[in-house]
């Protein structure tokens, strides 16, 4: 067999074994992904560039641009699912509403456990929608009894709160009760609102630092 053919065959063998190892490792890993699950429900395309760029374009006066506001596309996409968009005022008002203490208004943090432990809206439920089997049983009953469910993630171009809202809707929570807060946790911090750390209702608070 010519050397070049042997080389290609060897590369093919490594590729094949590597793919099998990958599938096996994914199967065994507790963090493994399901191959058939739609992890981005309700979204057909990723947002156009920007989301990962951390160097905003400088303006003529030397200042940098503010974080991007929710686009009309985001709002339209949410509204197509019958989900409402919550602005900063509505979120603050809801947080201080007596219904919040009665858990008739609840906050749902759609980030992952690490970010949640570092700081979240006081009393917010954690719902990492990428791991529904782990989190849905705890959050779903609270969402089904609440009158208003406000979901947030990091803000900016983060879409996890949208996906979590669609997942909750698909799980049976009426869309009319679901609100997505596009400003997210970064806007919450900017507004200097209280931040709870550790598990839910830990009673440990820290100073808000944007």
């Amino acid at each position, binding site marked *: 067999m010519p050397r070049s053919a042997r080389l290609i065959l060897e590369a093919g063998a490594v*590729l094949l074994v590597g793919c099998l190892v*990958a*599938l096996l490792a994914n199967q065994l890993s507790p963090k493994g992904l399901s191959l058939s699950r739609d992890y981005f429900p309700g979204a057909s395309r990723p947002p156009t560039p920007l989301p990962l760029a951390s160097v905003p374009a400088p303006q003529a006066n030397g200042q940098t641009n503010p974080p991007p506001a929710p686009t009309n596309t985001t709002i339209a996409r949410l509204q197509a699912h019958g989900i409402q968009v919550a602005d900063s005022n509505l979120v603050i008002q809801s947080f201080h509403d007596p219904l919040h203490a009665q858990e008739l208004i609840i906050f749902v943090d759609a980030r992952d456990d690490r970010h949640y432990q570092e700081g979240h809206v006081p009393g917010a439920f954690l719902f990492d929608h990428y791991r529904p089997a782990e989190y849905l049983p705890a959050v779903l009953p609270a969402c089904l009894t609440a009158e208003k469910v406000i979901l947030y993630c990091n803000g900016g171009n983060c879409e996890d709160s949208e996906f979590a809202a669609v997942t909750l809707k698909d799980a049976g929570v009426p869309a009319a009760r679901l609100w997505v807060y596009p400003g997210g946790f970064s806007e919450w911090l900017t507004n200097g609102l209280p931040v709870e750390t550790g598990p839910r209702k830990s009673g440990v608070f820290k100073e808000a630092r944007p």
Partner: protein
Amino acid sequence: MTTPSGTSRNPWGTWAAVLARLILGGVFLYMGLNKALDPVGFLKLVRQYDLVHGPPWINLVAVTVPWLEAFCGALLVAGVAVRGTALLALAMLVPFTALVIRRALEIQAATGSAFCAIRFDCGCGAGEVWICAKIVENTLLTLLALFLTACRSHRWAARPFLLAAGTPGPAREPSPAP
């Protein structure tokens, strides 16, 4: 220069091959494991490239690429199927680099930033990177992969040739005549 038995007569070439294997393998292993240990994070980054849509394809890419990279890295470090693995690494590096550049150009078009001022998480396994530094890094890795694909010097390699039983192996002292 390489002897028929696969060992190089040039000691510099021999050690360069060992070093190239360890660098390329080490980088692939590190980057691959970083991604494999955060599959959701990598899945989100794969989606940003807008190449494959919906399950199972996007999930399959997010599952296989990191582990395949780590697997190739481990083979290179151990010195197993070196040339074939280096060729596969090359086949991954070239399109991945092209995709990263395309993504950076999209960001540049959207932000108006200077090309080298663009810093983003390309899904390469090391978090946010400056695009120009990434291009230099990938070019160097591509050159290492090319060198290893062409090189037949394999000191300190567990099983350099997977398919060629009996051909190039470690040089042996000739048996004394009976």
